[in-house]
């Protein structure tokens, strides 16, 4: 069973999350080097982090009539929400706080990025940046409901909103196996709320970087960190929700959690390079006409199974 509330988890959870995010960035850099025809070595993997000290001392950006307060609030919200979301994610047999409404907590933190990104796009007072902020909302309206139904499927299956209960309720038969639609919708949702790869629409190159276009220095570092922290957090949450949590033969639970999280993270890093950016004007209709009905039917499956039990 999941133990919650040990003091060291408060430090360990953000640390682990950061570690996963760093690994994801490094993995992406290695894949990048391979397709660019550069030699791949350990140095390749750490090169993206060369810019971090620079970001900390960079000159702040000057814009005409920015809304600095809201801009800063938005930029900070994204990574902070990602870290807060890990409170309810059990790693092995430990969680910071195994809330009775853990799934809803995770969802609420994820929705905070809506506000964060919109503010980050609004603040600098630049057209492309603002359009980037709007784009995330359009994307949000598309991915959010399928993601919610995916989360509800697992909660319905376990008859609990507590993430620890959901992990325990799988009894060796992972929800990923008998709720594949929910699992797929969830993974797409993870990429979408990290606005990476196919869901990089709010920061598209066609908008000269969109929300990221006018940020520099610490602001930019925070937003970029927020993206990868969300990817890591989403991968970690996939383990208790769909992959049986820390359960597994032989090894300790925390090792299983680690292995499973890394596998999901690796899969997502690979996938985000294999697809072009999906524009919300196409994705919204697909999400509402195809994904939402599918995920609703998916919720029906565990509901019926539980009724007949």
């Amino acid at each position, binding site marked *: 069973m999941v133990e919650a509330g040990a003091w060291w988890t408060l430090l360990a959870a953000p640390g682990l999350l950061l570690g996963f995010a760093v690994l994801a960035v490094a993995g992406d850099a290695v894949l990048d080097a391979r397709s660019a025809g550069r030699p791949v070595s350990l140095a390749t993997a750490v090169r993206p982090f060369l810019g971090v000290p620079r970001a900390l001392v960079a000159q702040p950006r000057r814009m005409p009539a*920015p*809304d600095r307060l809201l801009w800063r609030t938005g930029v900070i919200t994204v990574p902070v929400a990602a870290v807060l979301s890990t409170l309810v994610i059990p790693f092995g047999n430990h969680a910071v706080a195994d809330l009775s*409404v853990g799934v809803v907590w995770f969802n609420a933190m994820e*929705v905070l990025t809506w506000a964060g990104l919109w503010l980050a796009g609004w603040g600098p007072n630049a057209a492309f940046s603002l359009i980037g902020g709007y784009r995330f*909302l359009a994307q949000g309206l598309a991915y959010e409901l399928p993601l919610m139904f995916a989360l509800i499927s697992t909660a319905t299956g376990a008859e609990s909103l507590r993430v620890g209960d959901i992990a325990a309720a799988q009894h060796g038969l992972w929800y990923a196996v008998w709720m594949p639609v929910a699992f797929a919708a969830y993974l797409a949702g993870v990429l979408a709320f990290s606005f990476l790869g196919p869901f990089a629409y709010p920061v598209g190159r066609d908008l000269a970087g969109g929300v990221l276009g006018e940020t520099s220095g610490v602001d930019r570092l925070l937003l970029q960190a927020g993206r990868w922290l969300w990817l890591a957090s989403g991968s970690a949450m996939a383990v208790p929700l769909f992959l049986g949590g820390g359960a597994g033969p032989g090894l300790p639970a925390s090792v299983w959690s680690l292995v499973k999280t890394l596998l999901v993270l690796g899969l997502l890093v690979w996938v985000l390079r294999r697809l072009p950016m999906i524009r919300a004007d196409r994705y919204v209709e697909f999400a509402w*006409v195809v994904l939402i009905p599918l995920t609703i039917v998916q919720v029906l499956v565990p509901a019926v199974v539980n009724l007949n039990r």
Partner: protein
Amino acid sequence: MGTTNTVLLVVLGVLALVFGVLVFTLNSMARVTFSLLAALVCVGGVTTVLGLPYLGVVIVLMMVMEMVVMAVFMIAYMMNPAGLMPMSMLHNKRGALVISGVVFAALVAGIFLVPWRDSAALQPRDTTFQVGRALMAEQMLTMVTLGFVLLATMVAATVLATHRGRYDRFGDDLDQRPAKDPAGGGVGR
């Protein structure tokens, strides 16, 4: 209720009030929207501290989505990025004052008129379950009716608001495929 909870309750309550006041004193639509959001998030916190974690977190979740969408609608008609014209958020001051005064008085009266039970003794173990039970068992008919009414309202409002109808999309004989839309959707209808 422990000391921590009492302190949290007071802090969140005061913050909610402060953000609520800011809604009427700030003069940028974006800031007003987000201070309203902040106030509602504090209310979500208060609800959680009062022992209804599900409702509290759901308030935060729903209000973030709702307020952001509202900001979009308000600002969609004024696309000036952040350099928006300063403008007052106060309209119909006298009427609003009367209405809010009456509502406030009614709510305060409610505090004293409702026969509260001794909460410590009867606190259910899982309030989420109680809420679900209340909504989905005793009030099932209300919820179903309410759900359909809301959905019908949304669909009807959208239909009334768009000037393009099916004849514009599918032609006079409704046989034109794919539909004639300014921008194609993702399913190719």
